[in-house]
């Protein structure tokens, strides 16, 4: 492959990814009684240097998707091409090398840092594991540098996580993810646990780091406002499937899928004049169980525009406008806003 083609190729390509978790019964003889279809056939790609948002409500499979990309789960089916190589089938050794390039930032800054380790050891551990910087003095210097890159006082290396606030801990989690100089970071709800004012600080930090180090993010979140602010493109998941994918402004200003529309309408914006003037009706019902998802289009039991055919066939994903993909057979003429 020529260099030009490599540059055009997306950094990450996910094709037909499925992750089904078995449900078993019985203590000695385990019988398979069902499956949780956490991720049920999704396709998307992430371009080098962009931030792709993956949004949806609890149980839609967004976190599982992230875990598959990190190979913390072995997918049931599908391909995950990272820089052209399928990582779904990599062995342990190849995985270790891969994880230098793909890192993760977790949601909860309280449970994702070992409370018995000093901050310096937490950030230094990845370098130790991957034998990047065997020299302890140099490693310590690198830890101090990372702390300062993440907006923390380098002396925090000697502290324990409990001595820090939530926002500071999340910065430590980010510093740890950066320690191996990765290209790609899976950010799994990195700001959801933080207070509004602190959330903005961390969002800005993530943006600065992306620019400074040329990072690519998969940004998993349920807060749509943060996603609009931070992501170039957004994929909306519902019950293990991607129902809509488009450029960020296109998706938020011109949503096509009825679920995306319902989701956006449900978010109140901080402006009473806008809120009081709109006629708002929440979508009915709750998300069904992924163990026994509805037939056909999984959204049909809650969908305001569903027809009989939606109960039978899974809708094709179609490109309704350039770069705007919708998995709904009833969306025909995407209107302009």
């Amino acid at each position, binding site marked *: 492959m020529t260099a030009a083609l490599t540059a055009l190729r997306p950094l990450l390509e996910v094709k037909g990814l499925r992750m089904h978790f078995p449900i078993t019964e019985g203590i000695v003889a385990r019988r398979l009684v069902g499956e949780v279809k956490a991720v049920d056939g999704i396709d998307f790609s992430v371009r080098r240097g962009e931030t792709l948002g993956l949004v949806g409500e609890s149980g839609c499979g967004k976190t599982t998707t992230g875990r598959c990309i990190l190979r913390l789960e072995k997918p049931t089916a599908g391909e995950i091409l990272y820089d052209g190589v399928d990582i779904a089938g990599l062995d342990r050794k190849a995985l270790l090398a891969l994880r230098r390039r793909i890192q993760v930032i977790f949601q909860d800054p309280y449970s994702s840092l070992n409370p018995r380790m000093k901050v310096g050891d937490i950030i230094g551990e990845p370098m130790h594991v991957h034998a990047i910087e065997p020299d302890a003095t140099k490693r310590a210097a690198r830890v101090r540098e990372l702390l300062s890159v993440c907006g923390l006082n380098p002396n925090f290396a000697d502290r324990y996580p409990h001595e820090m606030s939530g*926002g500071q801990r999340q910065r430590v989690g980010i510093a740890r993810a950066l320690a191996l100089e990765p290209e790609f970071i899976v950010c799994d709800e990195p700001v959801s646990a933080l207070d509004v004012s602190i959330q903005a*600080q961390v969002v800005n930090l993530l943006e600065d780091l992306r620019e400074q180090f040329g990072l690519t993010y998969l940004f998993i979140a349920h807060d749509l406002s943060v996603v609009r602010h931070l992501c170039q493109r957004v994929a909306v998941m519902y019950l293990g499937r991607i129902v809509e994918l488009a450029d960020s*402004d296109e998706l938020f200003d011109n949503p096509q899928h009825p679920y995306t529309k319902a989701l956006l309408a449900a*978010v*109140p914006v901080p*402006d009473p*004049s806008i*809120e009081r003037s709109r006629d708002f009706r929440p979508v009915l019902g709750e998300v069904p169980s992924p163990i026994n998802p509805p037939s056909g289009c999984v959204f049909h039991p809650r969908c305001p525009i569903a027809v009989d055919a939606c109960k039978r066939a899974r809708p094709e994903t179609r490109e309704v406008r350039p770069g705007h993909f919708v998995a709904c057979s009833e969306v025909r003429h995407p209107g302009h806003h």
Partner: protein
Amino acid sequence: MQPLLEIRDLHTEFRTGAGIVRAVDGVSYSVDPGETVAIVGESGSGKSVSAMSILRLIPDPPGRITQGEILFTGRDLMGLSEAEMRQIRGGEIGMVFQEPMTSLNPVLTIGRQLTEGLQQHRGMDRIAAQNRAVELLNLVGIADPARRLKQYPHQLSGGMRQRIMIAIALACDPKLIIADEPTTALDVTIQAQILELMKRLTQQLNVALIIITHNLGVVARYANRVNVMYAGRIVESGTANAIYHDPRHPYTIALLRSVPRLDRPRQMRLDPVEGQPPDLTRLDDGCSFRPRCRFAIDICAASQPPLTPSGDGGHMAACFRSDAIAIEGHADKTFDREVHPTDEHAGDEHATETGEAA
């Protein structure tokens, strides 16, 4: 009109190993019958403690209400006996908590938890309470109520559990419901359902609602009046329109600017509130927002600014410079400011401060 609830100069403290935490430090506000009042603030601002203090649900030790009056329908709740308070809680004042899984008893059926209050407060017999429970479940939109009454909390989804909590809060025809982050644990479509339900029922039944939240969008959609809390005090109070369109306190302005907007394309970097919230055991005499405030001047260190009228219609702010700030807040209230060269570096500067402040 006499307010339904009037809180006057409430102080609640917690005695901890690190010192005395003044969680609520002189809070006064009132709630009119049928009105929805929002208390907004971040973790540790005292919004939950101030609401729990109304019902005297502060664990003692370590907590203590040290001062203040809580007038509910003209009676001071601080002067009531414990037995009289029990008649108020769940009777005249209902509560909806954040986490419906931990606030419902896991080993009792839904029916038992719903009828308990009716039997206690209203003296209903079992059959009458049972009938009323079915009626309440219908009211909060739960299908097949007879079956649900026999179920346990773990058999229901989060949204349904929160509907049960609302039914329990409404059971004894309260005049006031206190909802502490009622939808924070729920997904956004379910959050919308629950909030719409609460809005419809409080209007229909003319129940006043105190809603405690950190979500500025929820406040904009549902509240008539808003109290913004910071470090145990109300820093700004007014109608939702006044707070969002004409903020008079630097903290309110900063808070509104720090949230990204779903309804607008990205304009620029976020403008976070710099630094960290203060340590409540080490508050000095000055304004507690001073270290993070870009309007602070010498006088702000000398004494706490009182909550004083600023603007029209009962709009109040606790800031010495609220009139000057009102002009500035108005000028760029809409986030549509142009990117100033300095804005791009604001984050870096404060990021360093974050580290050093701790």
